[in-house]
C-alpha cells in the first residue's frame, strides 16, 4: 500500500465505528451542556466563554469522528464567520439599545422589562458564546489545514 506514496501525503481517513457511535450519542448532550454553562454565567460559575468553547468542541468531535476534510466540506466556510459576525452584531444591538432608549451603553434598566438586567446579561453571554464557538471552529480548521496553505483562506 505504501509504495510510491510520499512520506507526508495523508492517507484517506478511515472512520472508526466506535468513535462515530460515541460522537453520535454525545453530541446533543454536549450542545445542551454548552447552553447550560452559557446561561449559568450570570449567577454561578460558567459563562459565555466556557460555554462557547464547549459548543465549539462539537465541531472538533465531528472532525475526529468523520474526518476533518469531510467536516470542513459539511460545515462550509461561511458558518464560523457567520457565527462570529452574528455574535458581534447581537452584542452591539444589545449594547446600543439602551442608548437609543435614552440610557447609557449596556444600561439594561432602560429596556423597562421586569428582570431587564438579568435577561440582558444572559443575552450578552449568548452572544459571547456564539463568537467563541465560531472562533474555536475556525481555529480548528485553520490548524488542521497545516502549513502548506498560505494563510487561513480555507477556513
Amino acid at each position, binding site marked *: 500500500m505504501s509504495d510510491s506514496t510520499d512520506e507526508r501525503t495523508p492517507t484517506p481517513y478511515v472512520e472508526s465505528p466506535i468513535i462515530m457511535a*460515541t460522537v453520535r*450519542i454525545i453530541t446533543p*448532550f454536549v450542545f445542551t451542556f454548552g447552553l447550560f454553562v452559557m446561561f449559568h454565567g450570570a449567577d454561578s460559575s460558567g459563562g459565555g466563554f466556557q460555554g462557547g468553547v464547549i459548543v465549539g468542541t462539537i465541531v472538533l468531535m465531528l472532525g475526529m469522528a468523520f474526518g476533518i476534510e469531510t467536516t470542513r466540506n459539511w460545515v462550509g466556510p461561511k458558518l464560523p464567520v457567520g457565527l462570529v459576525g452574528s455574535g458581534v452584531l447581537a452584542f452591539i444591538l444589545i449594547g446600543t439599545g439602551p442608548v437609543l432608549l435614552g440610557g447609557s451603553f449596556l444600561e439594561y434598566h432602560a429596556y423597562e422589562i421586569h428582570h431587564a438586567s438579568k435577561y440582558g446579561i444572559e443575552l450578552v453571554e449568548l452572544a459571547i458564546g456564539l463568537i467563541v464557538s465560531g472562533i474555536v471552529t475556525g481555529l480548528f480548521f485553520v490548524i488542521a489545514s497545516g502549513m502548506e496553505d498560505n494563510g487561513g483562506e480555507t477556513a
Partner: protein
Amino acid sequence: MEIQEILILLLTCSGVFFAVVAAIGLVRLPDVYTRTHSASKSETFGAVLTLTAVAITFGGDLSTLKTVLLLVFMFLTNPTAAHAIVRAAADQGIEPWTTEEEES
C-alpha cells in the same frame, strides 16, 4: 448513616487506588500504547468509583443527578478518547514497543 459512611469511604479509597495505578502506569510504562492502556482503564474506573462516592455523599438532590450524569458520560467518553488517541498513533505509524529492540 454509619453504613453509608463506610460505603463512601470504601468507594473513595478504591477510586484513589485505581487513580494511583493509572498514574504509575503512565509514568512507568514504555510507549504510547501501553500508557494509554493503563491510563484509560484504571483512570476510568477510579473516576467512576470516586464519582459514585460523591453521588452518595450528596444524598439524593439535584447534585446527585448531575454527578450521575457526569459519571455516565465519563464512562462513555474516557475509553473512546483513549481509543481515538491510540488509533491516531497507529495511523501515524508509531511502532509498538517490544522486547526485541532494547536500545531505544
